[in-house]
C-alpha cells in the first residue's frame, strides 16, 4: 500500500498532463466535440460557466506552454536516456 512517490514522479506527472492538454488538436478533435474556438462562449458576464473555463484553460495552456514544453520535454528525454 506504500506508494513510493518521489518529487521526480510529481514532475513527470505534471509534464505528461501538460503534454496531454497541449496536443489536443483544434480542428481534428476539439471542433468535433463542440469545444472549438468558434464555439466558445465569449460572454463577459460574471458567470462564464465550467465549460468556458475549461476551453479557456486549454487554449491558454496551448499558447503559453508551447515553447517551455519543448524545452522541458527535450531535457527529460536526455535525462531518461542518460540515467534510465
Amino acid at each position, binding site marked *: 500500500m506504500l506508494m513510493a512517490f518521489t518529487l521526480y514522479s510529481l514532475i513527470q506527472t505534471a509534464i505528461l498532463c501538460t503534454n496531454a492538454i497541449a496536443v489536443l488538436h483544434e480542428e481534428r478533435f476539439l471542433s468535433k466535440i463542440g469545444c472549438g474556438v468558434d464555439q466558445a462562449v465569449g460572454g463577459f458576464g460574471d458567470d462564464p460557466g465550467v465549460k468556458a*473555463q475549461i476551453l479557456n484553460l486549454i487554449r491558454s495552456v496551448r499558447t503559453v506552454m508551447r515553447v517551455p514544453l519543448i524545452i522541458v520535454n527535450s531535457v527529460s528525454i536526455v535525462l531518461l536516456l542518460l540515467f534510465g
Partner: protein
Amino acid sequence: MDYSTPQNVFRQHPNMRLRNTSIDGSDGSQLFDDTSGATPASQMGYKNQQAGPESAAYPGQSLLSDPMSNLAMAYGSSLASQGKEMMDKNLDRFIPISKLKYYFAVDTVYVGKKLGLLVFPYMHQNWEVNYQQDTPVAPRFDVNAPDLYIPTMGFITYILVAGLALGTQNRFSPELLGVQASSAFVWLIMEVLAVLLSLYLVTVNTDLTTIDLLAFSGYKYVGMIVGVVSGLLFGKPAYYLSLLWCCAAIFIFMIRTLRLKLLSESAAEGRLVRGARNQLRMYLTMSIAAAQPIFMYWLTCHLIR
C-alpha cells in the same frame, strides 16, 4: 438603504488585501512580540538584530581604536548589509517570505485552541475571521485564522510517528522515512493543485490564497497523528475508532470554515439559495471536505497492520 453596517460585517471580497504591511508594529498590530528588550529603535522585527554591528557604537573596544581597522570594519559591515539587502530582495521575489511570516505569528494559546477545534469543532459558534482595516488579523489574535505552524509541525510529527509505527512492526529502515515524507508531500501538493483547479473552474471569487489552501490541507495531519498513536497504543480497534472521530471532526471543521469563504453571503448563513452556481459551490465545498477523511485513511492505513 442601511448605512450603519455592523462592525464585524462578513467580508468576502476585501479589495487590496495586504497581509503584512504593518509589520513594523508602529500601529500596535505587531506580528511578533518584541522580546529583544532593547531600545524602541530596534523594534523593526528581529532583522535589525542581525545587522552588521556598528563598530563605532561599541564603547570600550581597544582593538578598534586603530583607525585603519576601524575603516576596514566599517567597510566590511556596509558590504555585508548591502549583500544581505540584495539577497533579501531577490529571495522575496521567489518565496514570499514576508507573507509567510504572517502565518507563523502564533502563540501557545492559539495553538492549543486550534488543536482543540480540530478535534472537537462542534461547540464553536463563530467561525468568521476578524479583519482589521482590510487586513486579516494575525493568527495569535483570532482563532479562526489559518496558520502554517500547525500543518508544518503536524507533517514532521506524522513522519516521525510513521517511522515509529514501522519500527514496531520491524519494517523500518532509514530510507523509508524519506519515502514516507516525499509521498505525503506529493499527495499534499496534488491535493492543493486539485483544489486550485476546481476553484478556477467554478470561478469562485474568494480571497483564499494558495497558502491558505496549503494550511487547510495540512490540518488533517493532526487527526492522522492522533489515529496512528492511539492505534499503536491500544491496537487496531482504537485506531479505527479514533480515526473515525477525527475524520468526522475534520469534515465538520472544513465545511464550517470553507462555507464562509466559498459560498455567497446568503447561502453561508444557512438559508437555502437556489441556482446552479450556488449548488456547484456547495458541491465543491462538500468534496473538498470529503477528500480530507479519504486522505487521512489512505495515508495511515498501511502503518497499522
